[in-house]
């Protein structure tokens, strides 16, 4: 059985309008490569590790299991490219794009939106050298990351796992995606969020914050162009991408009380049905 010994989260909004990863950066020169999804992941990981009493030198026996939301792209990043790629009639001109348009993009733009980059920044700043599973893009995939981490811990492949999810969703590309699904998600519901857990086996000497009591994941995808299954279309904190469970449990561990439990269920657009039961210390 596996336990949480640390949890950290960032949910951008009125109470935390921005996040600064600088205090957690072991490799300061990596800052210029970081987009918002990288900032969110590093801050959540740093907070989780700090709660677990761990420092940054994690090494080869620590694995990273991360679900990343849809690829972000901001208007302000693509607008200069587009402006230099239009003909006088305002239509896209491939020749102009290839000659000069694409060079108007920030040279580090590619690094700031790739879905494997949050894993890179977490690994380099906390020296995570173990196995990994980086997956994409929804809440069902977070459950698969959790399955992979549990199996790696229980088989002895690793001693400790960083498990989490990150989603940078307030941008035109992710907003476009959520505007076309059924039912559509309004842009104002999209949240920028990350949550990370430190996960270990029962044998850990660290005090557990929560224990996984049961985990069940099933999969029955519908025809993607004709969704016929019900799914969870509303979350109280807004659309959290893959980070719903990770955030809920991280927040639950930050409150206290008598014997408590968290039951999480999921029916996702892409066909996952999942549930987990956690007992909180």
């Amino acid at each position, binding site marked *: 059985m596996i336990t949480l010994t640390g949890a950290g989260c960032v949910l951008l909004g009125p109470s935390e309008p921005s996040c600064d990863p600088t205090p957690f950066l072991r490799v300061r020169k990596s800052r210029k*490569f970081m987009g918002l999804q990288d900032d969110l992941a590093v801050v959540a990981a740093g907070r989780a590790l700090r709660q677990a009493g761990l420092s940054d030198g994690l090494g*080869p026996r620590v694995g*990273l299991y991360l679900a990343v939301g849809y*690829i972000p792209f901001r208007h302000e990043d*693509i607008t200069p490219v*587009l402006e230099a*790629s*239009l003909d006088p009639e*305002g*239509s*896209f001109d*491939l*020749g*102009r*794009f*290839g*000659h000069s348009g*694409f*060079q108007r*993009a920030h*040279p580090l*733009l*590619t690094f700031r939106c*790739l879905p*494997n*980059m949050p*894993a*890179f920044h977490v*690994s*380099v700043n906390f*020296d995570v*050298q*173990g*196995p*990994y*599973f*980086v*997956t994409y*893009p*929804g809440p069902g*995939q977070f459950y*698969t990351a959790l*399955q992979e981490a549990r*199996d790696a811990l229980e088989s002895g492949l690793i001693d400790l796992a960083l498990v989490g999810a990150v989603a940078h969703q307030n941008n035109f*590309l992710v907003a*476009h*995606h959520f*505007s*076309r699904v059924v039912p559509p998600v309004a842009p104002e519901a999209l949240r920028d969020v990350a949550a990370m857990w430190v996960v270990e086996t029962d044998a850990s000497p660290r005090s557990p914050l929560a224990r996984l009591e049961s985990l069940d*994941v*099933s*999969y*029955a*995808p*519908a025809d*993607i*162009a004709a969704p016929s299954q019900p799914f969870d279309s509303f979350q109280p904190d807004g659309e959290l991408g893959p980070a719903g469970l990770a955030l809920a449990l991280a927040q639950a561990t930050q409150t206290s009380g008598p014997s408590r439990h968290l039951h999480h269920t999921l029916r996702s657009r*892409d*066909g*996952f049905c999942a549930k987990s039961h956690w007992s909180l210390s």
Partner: protein
Amino acid sequence: MKPHRVVVTGMGVVCPLGASVEGFAQGLFEGRSGVRRISLFDAATFPTRIAGEAPLPDDVPLGDRKVAFALEAARQAMRHASASGTAPRLGKDAAISMGVGLELFSMVDLVTSRRAGFVLPATLRERLSFLQTPSDTCIAMMAREHGCFGSPRVHVSACAAGTDAIGAAARLIARGSVRTALAGGTDSMINPLGVAGFCTLSATSTRNDEPQRASRPFDRTRDGFVMGEGAGVLVLERLDDALGRGASILAEVSGYGSSLDAYGISEPHPEGRGAWQAMVRALDDAGLGPGDVDAINAHGTSTRKNDPVETLAIKRLLGERAGRVPICATKSMIGHLISAAGAVEAIAAICCIERGWVHPTINLESPDPDCDLDYVPNRARPHVQRHVLSTSYGFGGHNAALVLSRWPT
């Protein structure tokens, strides 16, 4: 000791050397290049104007090439696996595990979407293909078509994703979570935004006048990688299931290992620490040692940074045997298929194991003093192999290795 051994019973491939395993293998052993001038769009004004384009299947769901490649490769693999014996075990006992390429968006659609009065297309199918197609849709489509309803795995570990997908699928089977898997990778980035993105990073070869000589792993005059596209899919099964249904077994997936470099965003650890670690873990998982490695299908990108560091990692792993173990770079012929690379290269490695030959690394003409191993230059040769390492090292420090073994060993 793993509860279950895992074997390959079917393979499918779409790549710049063709849309069948036989055609792919023939091209590999002939040392043929699939790299050409880009024809998918007018790349005349781009710094890089060459790539390895794959033949497009007739059916292109949602207009997305990588989805079409994945579905075609999966069909081939399932036909292959079902050609002898009864059909593989599917349903909840089967899962999809795929490395899937990036969702790039259409600049033309972007301009359209910014025009006054724009409204999204009417049908969900049209909306899902406007601007960009969610790349994970191919997982659901593969699962529905073949009846694989185990918990799927989507991998986005960049250039290591295809290898990770096969390794993760093998783990799912080995520990008893499922009994069958369709595993591999698919990618297509030969479009304006994809080519421009890599040009911005100065990562791709600009040897535009000699497309077929542009991808030259381990050669002193290499100047970057050549983009490729396509998909590779393998059918993996529990050994006892495959034997029980009378399937033809092509190879065994004996081991898988992965690691994070925790070093540089676009450059590998200078001593190849992560690459070495992934290979060691794969061999440990297989219950083998460096002395058991008969050949390596290298990552071999043809970039200045990768090839010498990969060489260092192999030397650290194999010690004094390093110069005697053949090392093949499939990318010399098909370019870099990014998320599909590891899967297509695993199929190349299995073709080598089956035939008792190693395919060449073409365009290796000027030896690089920092790349001084046996890379099988330019000509295939006979070489019996029991255990082969197939390796992939991704942008951002993701390293993955598989041990593929001859069956019966």
